[in-house]
């Protein structure tokens, strides 16, 4: 919403504040100012001058030398403009002044153009006479200005030499742009904003006094109105104007429209535009001659109907679009755009005015389906006050009369089956103060309400809320009115009292914090990826066609296929980031993400899906499978459940290297999986390096983790260390060997360390050499060699069953 200050002053004559003060105060009272533009920001020292005398320039054919009376003196100005003559009144920028731009109408320079006295072909010139473009405007808004040349004030302009030319042109104005919130429909109008400004600055608000004289006749003889769908059209008012005289609008109206950036067309069009700006109520004008049967019918369209709007476009209708029809045919889309078939032309004799109230939601949905948004529809979608329709109608007719645009027939057709009236709310100052934490007096509150047009009945203690304030429905709404005029900045600052509460994070969040620390301590940086992705990722990740992972939740209105399903596996996001790093030639990358995947219980969704928190890690560059595994092992240890976690070889994950992947388990609990990204999948992401990934189920981690620790005492008795070096089939994983050693070692086995794995010349084909160091210790005594010997024998015997022999 934009308002020129000058237009607001039409209703708040005492509004006389500096623009900065205006902007700040309006923002603090709830009309958030997004910006403003001072039309005269670069206009300095510009006065009205009268050309007393014109002589030819002695040395230049195209220049003339003018003596210009600028009030206090007469100055000599040289110009090349062809259109001026003696006695013309023109805007003159004096030596040292400033204009907005050049006469060519090019975009205006930020700082304007400084004007200094100088010589033109040897003749001194003490200023410049200005074109409308040089003053920062255009012929669109000053149609009386010449196409090329100096602006000449019309004879009736009432200006004299020395007057402020900027003020005389109405350019000493600022247009303020507000962000109006959706609840304040009334503020999308000059009158609404003027009311706010008056209330903000405690000035008198004087809305237009609307009277229509009428010229006899009876509107019912001209037109009848039937509203069939009263749910979509809550009110329809119509008046008729005869003897239409199309002509230009008066200057004051053109100026106000110009200030608002609306070009003047003719008196009739200007009046509807003017009323729409002033009241926020769209109006529509029909040529009565084009209306068959002197009848208006408001009804829904039928599915499949087509209709040609006045922009010449044929459009598809459906049964939820409301149409304005005459006795035979459709003549307009209600509230959106009129039809080509009832368009007003310059030949119009008799006019039918429509001011109606259409259901905002229906208009909004219709504009979307039809694909047509108009200024009128933009007003209706906000949900207008039906009582506004009649006010605007009469205002328009008053202007018709005042501008001599036609004769208004007596009477109004007003179809308004369910009139909306003021609601009443109790005046509860204590409750309002309690909600705000303030101590505003009753009188003060009532004064705020009075400024807003909310009347108080002392006898009933009730406040009557005008219908244009549809947003005020309860005590809290009234408290906001008190708050914003008392000033939010005057409300004290306190802290909540009452029962103390313990600030904390949930257990799962604490575990996540630990996981972050461990990941980062090992070189993994936090990544953030999208929750939605393309269904193509399943192919990219080589997921089989019948895999459960492909059962993903689809967004019904996605931004595009790339963002159309909710991820069921967390790898795509992080691999995309890994690819980004790889393509940008970053030498190493290690990333982790903690985020949800979304697993539907059934499809289509009938209840909320499971949102599963996953830790996803990915890396390339320095480090391999075992570096990543080491990080995980350290993580599990730090989280208090490191022992008995197994990394079980598997080939189940199609997107991982078949020989380099493991399921991570503890007992029957699936902690997650890790491995090298399948080279084909890596190819699909354009990564030509070995990528290692891990996906960890945070719900399981949270369940297993514990911050409980019990001190066990530092060993008092000496340990016995034995090394075992063995020859093993290549196909045997060290995990199997370790399981045997751990089982035989029992409680006495304190530590088991793999210190060598070797394949090569000194080992037979198909075999590898594996060497372990074992530490045995008893808590309560010094171990005898014999005891340890027995255990070792046992281990060797058990390993023998796997075909493992000790190395000679």
């Amino acid at each position, binding site marked *: 919403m934009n308002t020129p200050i000058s237009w607001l002053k039409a209703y708040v004559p005492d509004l006389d504040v500096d623009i900065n003060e205006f902007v700040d105060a309006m923002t*603090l009272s*709830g009309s*958030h100012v997004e910006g403003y533009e001072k039309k005269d920001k670069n206009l300095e020292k510009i006065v009205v001058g009268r050309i007393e005398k014109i002589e030819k320039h002695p040395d230049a054919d195209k220049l003339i030398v003018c003596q210009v009376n600028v009030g206090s003196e007469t100055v000599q100005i040289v110009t090349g403009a062809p259109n001026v003559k003696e006695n013309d009144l023109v805007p003159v920028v004096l030596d040292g002044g400033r204009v907005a731009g050049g006469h060519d109408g090019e975009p205006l320079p930020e700082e304007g153009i400084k004007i200094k006295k100088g010589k033109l072909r040897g003749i001194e010139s003490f200023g410049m006479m200005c074109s409308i473009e040089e003053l920062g405007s255009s012929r669109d808004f000053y149609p009386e200005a010449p196409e090329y040349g100096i602006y000449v004030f019309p004879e009736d302009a009432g200006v004299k030499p020395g007057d402020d030319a900027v003020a005389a042109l109405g350019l000493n104005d600022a247009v303020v742009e507000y962000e109006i*919130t*959706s609840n304040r429909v009334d503020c999308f109008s000059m009158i609404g904003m003027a009311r706010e400004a008056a209330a903000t600055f405690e000035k008198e608000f004087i809305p237009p006094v609307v009277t229509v004289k009428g010229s006899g006749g009876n509107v019912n003889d001209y037109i009848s109105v039937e509203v069939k769908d009263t749910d979509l059209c809550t009110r329809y008012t119509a008046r008729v104007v005869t003897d239409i005289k199309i002509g230009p609008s008066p200057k004051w109206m053109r100026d106000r429209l110009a200030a608002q950036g609306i070009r003047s067309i003719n008196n009739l069009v200007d009046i509807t535009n003017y009323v729409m700006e002033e009241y926020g109520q769209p109006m529509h004008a029909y040529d009565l001659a084009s209306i068959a049967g002197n009848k208006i019918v408001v009804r829904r369209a039928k599915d499949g109907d087509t209709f040609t709007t006045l922009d010449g476009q044929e459009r598809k209708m459906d049964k939820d679009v409301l149409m304005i029809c005459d006795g035979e045919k459709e003549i307009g889309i209600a509230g959106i755009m009129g039809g080509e078939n009832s368009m007003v032309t310059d030949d119009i004799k008799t006019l039918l005015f429509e001011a109606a109230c259409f259901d*905002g939601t229906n208009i*909004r*949905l219709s504009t979307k389906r039809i694909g047509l948004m108009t200024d009128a529809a933009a007003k209706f*979608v*906000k949900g207008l006050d039906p009582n506004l329709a009649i006010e605007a109608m009469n205002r328009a007719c008053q202007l018709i009369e005042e501008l001599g645009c036609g004769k208004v027939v007596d009477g109004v057709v007003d179809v308004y089956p369910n009139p909306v009236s003021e609601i009443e709310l109790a005046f509860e100052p204590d409750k309002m103060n*309690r*909600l*705000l*934490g*303030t101590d505003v007096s009753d009188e003060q509150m009532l004064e705020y309400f009075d400024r807003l047009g909310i009347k108080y009945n002392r006898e009933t203690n009730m406040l009557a809320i005008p219908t244009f304030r549809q947003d005020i429905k309860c*005590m*809290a*709404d009234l*408290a906001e009115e008190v708050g*914003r005029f008392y000033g*939010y*900045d005057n*409300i*004290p*600052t*306190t*802290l*909540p009292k*009452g*029962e103390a*509460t*313990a*600030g*904390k*994070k*949930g257990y799962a969040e604490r575990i996540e914090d630990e996981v*972050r620390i461990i990941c*980062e*301590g090992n*070189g993994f*940086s*936090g990544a953030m*990826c*999208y*929750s*939605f992705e393309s269904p193509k990722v399943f192919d990219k990740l080589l997921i089989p066609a019948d895999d459960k992972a492909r059962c993903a*939740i689809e*967004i*019904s*209105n*996605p*931004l595009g296929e790339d*963002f159309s399903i909710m991820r069921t596996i967390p790898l795509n996001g992080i691999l995309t980031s890994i690819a*980004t*790093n790889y393509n940008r030639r*970053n030498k*190493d990358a290690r*990333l982790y993400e903690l985020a949800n995947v*979304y697993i539907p219980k059934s499809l289509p969704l009938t209840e*909320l899906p499971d949102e599963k928190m996953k830790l996803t890690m990915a890396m390339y560059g320095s480090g391999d499978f075992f570096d990543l595994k080491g990080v995980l092992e350290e993580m599990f240890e730090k989280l208090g459940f490191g022992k008995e976690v197994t990394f079980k070889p598997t080939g189940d994950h199609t997107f991982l290297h078949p020989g380099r992947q493991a399921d991570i388990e503890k007992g029957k609990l699936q902690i997650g999986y890790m491995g090298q990204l399948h080279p084909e999948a890596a190819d699909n992401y354009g990564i030509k390096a070995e990528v290692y990934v891990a996906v960890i189920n945070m719900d399981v981690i949270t369940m297993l983790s514990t911050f409980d620790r019990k001190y066990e005492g530092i060993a008092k008795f000496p340990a016995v260390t034995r090394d075992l070096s063995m020859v093993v089939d290549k196909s045997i994983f060290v995990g199997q060997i370790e399981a045997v050693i751990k089982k035989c070692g029992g409680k006495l086995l304190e530590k088991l360390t793999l210190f060598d794995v070797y394949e090569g010349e000194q080992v037979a084909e198909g075999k590898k050499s594996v060497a372990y160091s074992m530490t045995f210790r008893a808590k309560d005594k010094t171990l005898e060699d014999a005891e340890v010997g027995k255990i070792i024998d046992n281990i060797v015997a058990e390993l023998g069953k796997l075909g493992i022999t000790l190395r000679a």
Partner: protein
Amino acid sequence: MKEKLQDIRDKALASIEQAKDASMINDIKVAILGKKGELTQVLKSMKDVAPEDRPKVGQLVNEARQSIEEKLEAKLKSINNAVRVEKMKREIIDVTLPGVKKIQGHRHPNQIAVEDLERVFIGMGYEVVRGPEIEYDKYNFELLNIPANHPAKDEQDTFYITKDILLRTQTSPVQARIMEQGKLPIRILSPGRVFRSDEVDATHSPSFHQVEGLVIDKNITMADLKGTLDQFAKEFFGENTKTKFRPHHFPFTEPSAEVDITCFKCGGKGCRVCKGSGWIEILGCGMVHPHVLEMCGIDPEVYSGFAFGIGLERVTLLKYEIDDMRLLYENDMRFLNQF
């Protein structure tokens, strides 16, 4: 006897003084104090001394022994010191050579910002809670005073899964869920992912984060809301930060406000970060709408409360002067390494 002791002592002290290294000190020690050392010999000859003189002679011997031992020790220490000084002279390193680093990962800037926020509010007695990211229309809209066909549903450009299930457009549904549970008083902070149908560009993302705060108790006032956010702003953005509350509209709060803070870059003078205004819009807030309390089963005649919502990315981008939101989702190591 006495003279002899004096003689041994003088000679010993003199030779200790002359000693050049640790082995010479040791030789002297053996020659004087060792089993066959001079002083030991004197001690052995004690039996020849008259019994009544023995204590006195004994004392003299001990005195001599003590002074020699002290001297030996002092000399040894000084020799060792000299040796160490020499050694250290040969051990000079170039301390300007680079350190050996272990690769450290870096926290995502958005995560740092959320943790900073959590810390402030946990300190004020708030519990951090979470809610579902895929949510029922009921919690995301209906219980928040946004009925069917409300224009806000359009404004927020919601991603729908079904008619009733959607990607939450705000963290506010967590409010409704917590209120519905009915455990009072409430002081919660709920950070999380939210989704809106915005095309990706430098300032928009279809996925971003909000941090929602909610307090419900008896006698909670708008003054409490102001005080709380004022304290938050000071702790989060710096002691000198000021706040400005502007009236605004949200369907689920009444009265509502938007809050600006004095620009943390320029302190309010006006700069590029605050676009010259000196103020930065940072969050939306308000008193929980009585109708929302009612719908969630809380009696608005007894309880009142406030809620606020902070756009996390906005805070992150401003705080770290990141000029393009897309950087947050690219995860380029050269970006992440800066945090």
